[in-house]
């Protein structure tokens, strides 16, 4: 009997402390992040953000990421002629209203990742990754997407 009471008491204590602790939980947004199972050559979210954009019609928002070569270029040029070795990733998320701030939308989950790399022959290679997990899919007419991606100008700061 005493034992039973002890365990009931103990589980109550654990319950109480764990619910207190969960107040201070770690909140990482995995839904909106790239997963290990995604079939991407690298994690684009670790590259340099060039700019972001919103497509209200689709409730979507995107961030354009770049490797060092492309980032350095975009900091000083806005002519879309990225040098050889440039890697650009346009990551697009579905938006959701920010539960903590009425008046803001934040990313909900990744819809697609588009990659443009400038090869040694100066040609741009386009790859679209979509689905869950993200996998490269064949696309036919993507020249307008390449233009869209390389012509975004950098979000400048002083």
């Amino acid at each position: 009997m005493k034992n039973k009471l002890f365990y009931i008491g103990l589980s109550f204590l654990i319950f109480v402390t764990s619910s207190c602790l969960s107040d201070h939980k770690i909140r990482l947004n995995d839904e909106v992040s790239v997963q290990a199972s995604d079939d991407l050559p690298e994690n684009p979210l670790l590259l340099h953000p060039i700019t972001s954009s919103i497509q209200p019609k689709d409730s979507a928002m995107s961030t354009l990421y770049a490797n060092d070569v492309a980032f350095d270029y975009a900091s000083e040029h806005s002519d879309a002629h990225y040098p050889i070795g440039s890697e650009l990733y346009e990551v697009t998320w579905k938006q959701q209203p920010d539960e903590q701030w009425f008046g803001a939308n934040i990313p909900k989950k990744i819809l697609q990742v588009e990659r443009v790399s400038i090869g040694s022959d100066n040609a741009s290679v386009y790859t679209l990754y979509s689905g869950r997990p993200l996998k490269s899919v064949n696309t036919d007419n993507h020249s307008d997407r390449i233009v869209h991606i390389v012509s975004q100008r950098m979000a400048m700061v002083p």
Partner: protein
Amino acid sequence: MKKWSVILVVLVTIFGIAQLIRPKEISNRPLSDLKNVPKDVNDVLRSSCFDCHSSETNLKWFDRITPANFLVNGHVLAGRKALDFSGWDTLTTSQQNNILSYALNKILEGEMPLPSYSFIHRDSKLSPKDINLLKQFLLSRTPRKVSDTAQLQQSNISFEQLQQNKAKHIGKQVVFAPNGIAYISDYRNWHAISSSDRFDNGTMRIIFANDIAVKAIQNKQTNPWPDDAVFAKTAWKQQVNADGSVTTGAFVQVEFMIKDSHKYAKTKGWGWARWRGNDLQPYGKDALFTAECISCHQPVENNDFVFTQPLNLHSLIAQSK
């Protein structure tokens, strides 16, 4: 029995005498409806907020009894200082929108009206219908409109100015924030931990984090954030293009939160600072400006005062390939 009646008499007498001790009478100047605000929205604000946030303070009889009156008067004076709807008509539309959006968010967090007040003043509590009314009203005031030529020109000028400064590497000395915090100039090379679309004030933001903060994310040690973690939140105007898409326009401001649980113990463990415009004017008249930052970040106290839920920036993929 007798003993109790003596105590009762003593208590009643003390209570009676206490009524002679009163705080300074709260002024009460009637306030007409806020301009360009529909009647039903005005009614909600009047019955729930005006008592503490305007010149019109209609106290109930029970608010006038000592000691309750000291508490209530304190709330009214502090409330008027924090936010006063009496000056509404003199504000610009965007200032008004900021107030409305801040007010609505304080309501949604359950911080306003003050719970101790609405517990007694039942009619000051907002119903779900009232809240929805405020939401719809705010949305109606902040539609996305295609940017006009003047706005496009402004964002082009801002862009060119900044790009030229970059190319020439003009390193101008940036003035310290009023709380003594120095400008941090290399945040544009940091990692992005999220972005937000603030349609309530027509800006879009990228939130950057320094390496220490990124390490904390990778090690899942983000609550509390470690000392020397720094966030930089950058805002640009939303440029709405003819096809409806939105891109970054003119630079608006950058804000920093610098973690140091000892140095900044008085401001919740964070150093707060904001610089505005291409010429990086420090924000705030004096060091007290941080009170503004903290009171708006208060609802996320349990998350170490950080709103943003960061992207999981693991390098797993890079390692496994």
